[in-house]
C-alpha cells in the first residue's frame, strides 16, 4: 500500500488524489482520542483526560464489514467519529484509501465527506423534522454537486428511496409521518446519495423492533453487495454483529481486546472478556441455553478517567493475576489473523 502524505503538495487546489489501486479502504493505526478534563476557578488547567479511545489499530478492506462491539463507554462510537474526523483524534493515524485524514484540513475533507458516510442509531433524532424525505435525501446531492438540474435531482432522490424499499410517492412527507424502520431507510438513502465507498453504521438497528431490524440488516447486506461498500458496523448486540460482519473487533475501555474473523471469534473466543461477553448473550433456544456455560462478570466497567493499570479488564477478569496490573497486553496475532490482547491465554 502506498502512503501519501497530503496537504503540502496539493495546497490551495484542495482536491486530493486518492489511491484507487489499494484494496484497503481504511487503515487505522494507534488511534487515540482523549477528552481533556479541566478544573480550577479563574485559572483553568487540564487535570486529567477521559481516554475514550486509547490506541486502536485495525483496517477495513474494500467491500468488507468490520464489526466493532463493546459495552457502553468502550469507545466504539468515538472511534467511528474520529475516523470520519467529526472528532479530531488526539494522536494516531487514519488512512482512507491511502490518504492520511488526520493531516487534512476541514476544507480538504469535503470531497471525503461524500465518500465516507454515517448512519445513526436514533432514526428520530438524526432527521431534520422540518425537511421532507425528498429534501433530506436530496441535500447531499446538492452539497456535493452530484445532481445536475432540479429534475435530475428529483429522479435521483426517487431512485434512492426506491432502492431502500420506500415508495417514491412518499418524497414529500416529513419525518414524523414515518415509522422508525422507514426513517432508518431514509437515513440509509441519505448516506447512499453521496455514493460512498465507506459507511460508519453506528448502532443502526438497535432502536428498531426485531422484525424491522431484520429488514434493515438485509437491506444493508444487499447494498454492500451491489455497491461494494465497506462498513464499520458499531453495535453492542453481538448476535447482530456476528450476522453482518466479516471480521469483528471487541472493545473494552478504549482498547481492542480481540480481533478476528467473525467465524473464528465466535467459534473460538480467546480473550476472557470476549468469552464472558458471549456467554452473557442469551440464544433464543431454551434447550441449548440449559447446556451453555454462563460466565457472570462482577462489577461495572471502570471509569475511563482513571482506568486500571496494566490490562484495563483485569478488575473484572476471572483469570487475572498480579502480573496483569503491571503489563499492558499487546494485541498479538495468534495466527489466522486472530489477534488477542491478553498475557494469560
Amino acid at each position, binding site marked *: 500500500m502506498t502512503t501519501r502524505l497530503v496537504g503540502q503538495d496539493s495546497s490551495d487546489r484542495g482536491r486530493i488524489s486518492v489511491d484507487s489501486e489499494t484494496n484497503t479502504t481504511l487503515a487505522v493505526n494507534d488511534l487515540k482520542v482523549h477528552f481533556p478534563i479541566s478544573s480550577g476557578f479563574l485559572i483553568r488547567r487540564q487535570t486529567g483526560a477521559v481516554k475514550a479511545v486509547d490506541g486502536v489499530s485495525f483496517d477495513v478492506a474494500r467491500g468488507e464489514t468490520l464489526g466493532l462491539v463493546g*459495552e*457502553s463507554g468502550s469507545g466504539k462510537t468515538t472511534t467511528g467519529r474520529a475516523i470520519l474526523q467529526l472528532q479530531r483524534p488526539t494522536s494516531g493515524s487514519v488512512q482512507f484509501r491511502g490518504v492520511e485524514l488526520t493531516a487534512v484540513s476541514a476544507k480538504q475533507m469535503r470531497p471525503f465527506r461524500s465518500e465516507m458516510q454515517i448512519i445513526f442509531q436514533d432514526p428520530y433524532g438524526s432527521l431534520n423534522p422540518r425537511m421532507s424525505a425528498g429534501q433530506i435525501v436530496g441535500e447531499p446531492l446538492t452539497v456535493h454537486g452530484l445532481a445536475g438540474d432540479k429534475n435530475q435531482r428529483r429522479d435521483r432522490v426517487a431512485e434512492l428511496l426506491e432502492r431502500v424499499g420506500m415508495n417514491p410517492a412518499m418524497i414529500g412527507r416529513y419525518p414524523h409521518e414515518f*415509522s422508525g*424502520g*422507514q426513517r432508518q431507510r431514509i437515513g440509509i438513502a441519505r448516506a447512499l446519495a453521496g455514493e460512498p465507498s465507506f459507511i460508519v453504521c453506528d448502532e443502526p438497528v438497535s432502536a428498531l*423492533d*426485531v*422484525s*424491522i*431490524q*431484520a*429488514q434493515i*440488516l*438485509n437491506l444493508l*447486506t444487499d447494498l454492500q453487495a451491489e455497491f461494494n461498500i465497506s462498513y464499520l458496523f458499531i453495535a*453492542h*448486540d*453481538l*448476535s*447482530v454483529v*456476528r*450476522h*453482518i*460482519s*466479516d471480521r469483528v473487533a471487541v472493545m473494552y475501555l478504549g482498547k481492542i481486546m480481540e480481533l478476528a474473523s*467473525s*467465524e473464528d471469534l*465466535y467459534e473460538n473466543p480467546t480473550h476472557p472478556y470476549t468469552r*464472558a*461477553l*458471549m*456467554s*452473557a*448473550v*442469551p*440464544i*433464543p*433456544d*431454551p*434447550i*441449548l*441455553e440449559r447446556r451453555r456455560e*454462563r460466565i*457472570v*462478570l*462482577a*462489577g*461495572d*466497567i471502570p471509569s475511563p478517567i482513571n482506568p486500571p493499570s496494566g490490562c484495563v479488564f483485569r478488575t473484572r477478569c476471572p483469570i487475572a493475576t498480579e502480573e496483569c496490573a503491571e503489563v499492558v497486553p499487546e494485541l498479538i496475532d495468534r495466527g489466522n489473523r486472530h489477534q488477542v490482547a491478553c498475557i494469560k491465554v
Partner: protein
Amino acid sequence: MTPDLPTAKAGSTHLLEVRNLATRFATAGGYVQAVDGVSFHIDEGEILGLVGESGCGKSVTSLSVMRLIPNPPGEITDGQVLFEGTDLRQISEQEMRRVRGGSIGMIFQEPMTSLNPVLTIGRQITEAFEIHLDLKGRAARDRAVEILNRVGLPDPSKKFDDYPHQLSGGQRQRAMIAMAISCNPRLLIADEATTALDVTIQAQILELLQSLCDEFKMALLIITHNLGVVARYAQRVAVMYAGKIIESGTADEIYADPQHPYTTGLLNSVPRLDASARDRLESIEGEIPDLANLPAGCAFEPRCRWAVDRCGIESPVQIPVRSSQGRLAEGTVHQVACWESENIAVGTALEKQPS
C-alpha cells in the same frame, strides 16, 4: 407444572391469574384497544415471559395488573386480575397500595423515572419498610444495606446515603431492584428491566432475579422483546401481538415448535449468536399495525403469508395445539390463536402469492 385447567370458583389456584383483561385508551381518533382479552397465569416460583414488539400491549398488561393505568385516558374495561385468589380490580385504592411494593413488586426500564431524585437510595428503600413491614430506624437501615449488598451494589453502606444521580445506570437499576424486592414480594414484574443495560450487567441482574425465584419461591413476570432472555430464564412464554396473546406454552414448545406464523417469523428474524454469519434473515414484511386502526379479523393477517379469506373476517380464538398425530398431548399448555395453524403444521396450508 400445573395444567391450565379452568377453575370453576371465583378464586384461582394460581398465584396470579389474569382472565380476559381488556384495557383501552381514549384518543382524539377514538378508542385504542391496547389490551384485548388477555388471559394468563403464573405460579409460585415460576418465571413467565411475556414477549412482543413495541405497541403489542405487553406493558399496558402489566400496568393494568398493578392498576397503574392513568385514567383518563386509560380504562380497564373488562376482566379479572386474581392475585392469591383476590380480584385486584375489586379492592379499594388503599388496599391496592398495600399490594404495590408489598406482595407485588415492579421494576421498569428507565430507573430514573422510578427513583426520587431528592431522596437518598436508602431512604427510598426504608420508606417501603415503614409502609409494608412496620420496620424503622437502625433495623430498617441494616436490612436495606443487606438488600443493596444482595443486588450486587458495591460498597452498600455508602451507597445507602447516596442520591440516585451519584450512581451509574446499572447501579440505579440495581437500586430499583433492591426497592422492588425489599418487602419480599410474591410476584415481581420486570418490564423491560434489563433492556437498557449492557449484556454483562443484564446477565448479573437476571441471574440475581432467578436466584430469588429459586430461593424464596418468588414468581417473576419478565416482559421483554428479547427472545434470548426469555429462552434462557422463562419456563413458560406468552407471545403478544396487537393487544392479544397469539401463542402461549412452555418455552421448549414455543421455541422448538412455534405454531403461529408471527412467532415463527419473529424467531427467524432474530440474528443468533450461534448461527453462521451471512445467512439471510427471514424478515416479516410490513409494519406493526396501528392499534387505532386494526384490520378486521386477525391483526397479523396483512403481514401473514399463510392468510386465507377467513383470517380477514373472523378473529381467531386460542386453541390447544395438537400433536402431529392429531391428538392432544396430556397436560399440554401449548395454545395458539390462528385459523391456519393446523394446516401450516401438516403442510397443507397454501402460501399467499406476494403481490
